């Protein structure tokens, strides 16, 4: 399969939405005049109420949905002129429900599936499977059926099988649902590592407590439109803005406001403790 050319290297823009509208076949308008540019190695969190258009927005990035009006480009290529399979080589999506993705006889074969679809050579496939199994602590389950895994393990496997083909952009749709605190911490570490490798991570989530320590660029959506877009310190720490898309202000911001602190607010409990002690 022909991989997507990274023609937008010079401008550094990885994903761009230009006045995008999208309506479902039944006439429901899901996106209204959405314009957004995501640059290389940006970490972006998309937040909003159910039905705000978050999942619809990210499905445009790998061409699963095509805009009704406007243009979506990935690495400069109009998504209308590429198939989902071509776009997915660069844009990996981990969907919210892991049960919708798992079908193979074993965890190993599940990871192998995407790598084969993208036509990678055998030796690379072996290396990538090993990497995925080790990184996500799935080695013990390699020969087990994915359907037998617990909810959290299935979720980890879904992230592993997408990262196995090393996409430039990783989209995680509600990645923390069903994950314990240890797995959340591990996921946060992986996200930091991906960003340090100049990759892009786009998180679709309601979990502000998970994203606050990561301090992502935060995009708030309501009724199919973007109502705020900026650094977490400016967007998530503003109760008036957060309220419009039914997002809770992170506890550390509330804590800071109670203590009379002004922005920038501490991103982690450790930073808050240091500030409290005056260190």
């Amino acid at each position: 399969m022909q991989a997507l050319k990274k023609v937008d290297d010079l401008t550094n823009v990885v994903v761009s939405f230009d006045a995008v509208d999208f309506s479902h076949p039944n006439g429901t308008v899901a996106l209204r005049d959405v314009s957004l540019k995501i640059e290389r190695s940006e970490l972006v969190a998309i937040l909003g109420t159910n039905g705000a258009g978050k999942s619809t927005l990210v499905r445009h990035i790998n061409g699963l949905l095509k805009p009704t009006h406007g243009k979506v480009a990935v690495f400069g290529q109009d998504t209308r002129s590429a198939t989902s399979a071509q776009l997915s080589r660069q844009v990996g999506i981990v969907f919210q429900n892991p049960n919708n993705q798992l079908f193979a006889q074993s965890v190993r074969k599940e990871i192998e599936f995407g790598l084969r679809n993208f036509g990678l050579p055998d030796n690379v496939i072996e290396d990538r499977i090993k990497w995925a199994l080790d990184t996500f602590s799935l080695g013990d389950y390699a020969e087990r059926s994915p359907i037998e895994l617990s909810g959290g393990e299935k979720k980890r496997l879904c992230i592993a099988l997408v990262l196995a083909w090393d996409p430039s952009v990783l989209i995680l749709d509600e990645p923390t649902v069903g994950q314990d605190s240890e797995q959340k911490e591990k996921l946060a570490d992986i996200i930091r590592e991906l960003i340090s490798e100049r990759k892009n991570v786009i998180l679709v989530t309601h979990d502000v407590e998970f994203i606050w320590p990561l301090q992502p660029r935060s995009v708030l959506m309501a009724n199919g439109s973007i109502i705020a877009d900026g650094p977490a310190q400016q967007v998530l720490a503003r109760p008036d803005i957060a309220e419009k898309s039914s997002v809770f202000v992170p506890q550390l911001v509330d804590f800071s406001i109670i203590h009379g602190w002004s922005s920038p607010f501490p991103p982690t409990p450790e930073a808050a403790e240091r500030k409290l002690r005056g260190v």
Partner: protein
Amino acid sequence: MQWIASGFLFVRGTTAYHRLDPRVRLAISLSIFSISLVSQSIIFLSAMIAITVGIVVFAKIVRRFAKSMVFTAIISLIAFGLNYYFAPASPHQAVVFGIRLFAVISSTSLFFMTTTPDELEQVMKWLHLPPDFIMIFVIAIRFVPVLMLDALQIMDAQRARGLEFDKGNFIKRLRNMIPVIIPLIAVALNRSLDLAEAMDSRAYGATKRPTSLYKLSLAKRDYFTLAILVAGLGIGIYLTLFVSIF
């Protein structure tokens, strides 16, 4: 897959046909179904299809009905072809068989597309069918759109892993459906187990005959429609028995 399933999907409507008592709608569909099943006349069978289409236009479900009937038309053509070439029947019989199949399926589809699962449940209770059977049947009908949505989501998820459903020969395309069918079965089984537990915990089966919140009652428009139906059936029987062209 969507085409096949959409023939059994209810479309909420506000037309006079939707407002009829579900038993009357059942009587209409059953009449068309029964006449189509016994009639040997091409003209009569075509008339049954024309009546069904007329009701579809009246109920304003033309688009969805037409979409779902594409698959039925293909099956009917195959039935005609098989009978024409392989069965010892006459060409007339082969045509009758093809049209009959279309008429029977379209009349069934008409009923399901205009009847909510709740109405269906009430009709089945009125027929004194066993409660467990009613529950199984209604849940199966209700889950068709849910499973369709699941199937679409699974297809999206597999497309995002580089799977191209529309590439390759027929066998390859069939094989490409494996990553959709297996998760779909797994999801459906999980959902049925969850539903069974949820129903048990809400005292399902505590009484042999649970009561209904709503009762079916015939209105004037229902009696009027039934009168037209009986008259139509009478004319149909007369034409079949006493007029030679039928």
